[in-house]
């Protein structure tokens, strides 16, 4: 028996419609999208455009501003490095994943930018107040995760985005843990939304999206073939091609389209409700074990992720033990050094993250095992 409760890393299983979309892509969309005018290329190009439309509608964007990437890390690197070319001050939150923190720190250590870290508190007012105090005259961009990949805490991203809008600062949102769980739109004030395609959007691994409102020009960090202006040695400037050098992952893109359609069919509120109920039941049982610490605060809101530790048992040991029972949970630092510094979790923690396919009976059985550890 294998039960996946590590859906924050990547959702599994995938919906049947997603699996079928991948198989269909392998059978039908064998051309190279945007390259050539033959029937196979055209059919593939049309399919990719259709996926852009689906994603655009989902996030409240224009299709041409939907860029398909390899994953959320790829999207965030393109956004951060692309916007911060030419220097300036960058603010990131204290809950950022390494996919934002590392490119930001690299730019700062190379003296190309200055970097500030905005502490995220359980209380939104405190977070906002602290964030405001960090804004400088040369602050060019802000990167805020919508929800922490460690604890699931939802940041006051709408309020932060609004402040950025008033001050003409580019607001980049990391939506890896929020997409498909809570309704995220560019109209929330987001200039550039970065997300994974393989987590809450239920696409396959190797998929991600960068969705822009088109206000800020993103300098490409990768140049190459785009299927357009091929006689020119200069990279095209228009989205999405300017950021999509090289052959696209057609099967992956079709999986993301099918995943979004799956979410639309189920209803994002129903997905959140199902997963949230499982998290609440899970917490209720595991906290009967007095050694258990759950990293949640009553003043904060969370996406359906539960971070916990059991006394002084190393989190990797807990995860190993649970794996012996067939339960897959991720332990350690979850590629999020900043968040663990904030939590004070010297050896990291264990993370429980269900998906729409997670069953109550599996959740309860797992919780009972943890209760008795």
């Amino acid at each position: 028996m294998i039960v996946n409760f590590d859906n924050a890393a990547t959702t599994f299983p995938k919906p049947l419609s997603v699996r079928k979309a991948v198989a269909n892509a392998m059978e039908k969309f064998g051309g190279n999208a945007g390259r050539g005018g033959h029937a196979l290329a055209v059919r593939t190009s049309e399919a990719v455009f259709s996926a852009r439309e689906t994603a655009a509608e989902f996030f409240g964007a224009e299709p041409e501003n939907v860029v398909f990437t390899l994953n959320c890390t790829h999207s965030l690197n393109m956004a951060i490095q692309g916007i911060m070319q030419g220097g300036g001050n960058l603010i990131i939150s204290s809950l950022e994943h390494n996919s934002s923190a590392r490119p930001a720190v690299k730019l700062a250590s190379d003296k190309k930018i200055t970097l500030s870290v905005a502490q995220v508190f359980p209380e939104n007012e405190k977070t906002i107040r602290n964030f405001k105090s960090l804004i400088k005259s040369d602050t060019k961009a802000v990167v805020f995760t919508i929800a922490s990949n460690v604890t699931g805490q939802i940041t006051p991203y709408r309020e932060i985005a609004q402040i950025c809008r008033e001050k003409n600062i580019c607001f980049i949102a990391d939506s890896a843990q929020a997409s498909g769980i809570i309704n995220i739109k560019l109209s929330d004030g987001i200039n550039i939304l970065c997300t994974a395609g393989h987590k809450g959007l239920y696409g396959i691994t190797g998929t991600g999206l960068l969705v822009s409102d088109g206000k800020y020009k993103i300098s490409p960090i990768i140049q190459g073939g785009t299927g357009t202006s091929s006689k020119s040695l200069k990279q095209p400037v228009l989205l999405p091609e300017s950021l999509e050098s090289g052959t696209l992952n057609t099967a992956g893109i079709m999986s993301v389209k099918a995943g979004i359609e799956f979410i639309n069919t189920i209803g994002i509120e129903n997905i959140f409700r199902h997963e949230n109920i499982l998290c609440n039941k899970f917490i209720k049982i595991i906290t009967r074990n007095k050694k258990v610490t759950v990293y949640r605060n009553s003043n904060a809101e969370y996406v359906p992720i539960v971070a916990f530790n059991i006394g002084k048992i190393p989190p990797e040991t807990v995860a190993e033990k649970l794996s012996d029972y067939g339960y897959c949970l991720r332990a350690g630092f979850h590629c999020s050094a900043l968040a663990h510094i904030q939590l004070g979790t010297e050896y990291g923690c264990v993370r429980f993250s269900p998906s729409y396919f997670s069953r109550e009976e599996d959740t309860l059985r797992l919780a009972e095992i943890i209760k008795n550890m």
Partner: protein
Amino acid sequence: MPSYTYAVKADKLLKSRGYNSRIERNKKKCGFSLKTDGDYQEITGIFEKYSIPYENISCGGEPL
């Protein structure tokens, strides 16, 4: 058209307004063209309204 993406967007927009339109491979350069009929000022007006960039317009192969 500057890209296939914009060619499709323009194609759909024109078709939804009753124009005949189709995407063709540009034979002179690597890229895509949109072949359509109707008044070019009306069509460019639609493109401008929806922020669709285009590189040039020709009629019967001659630039306008």
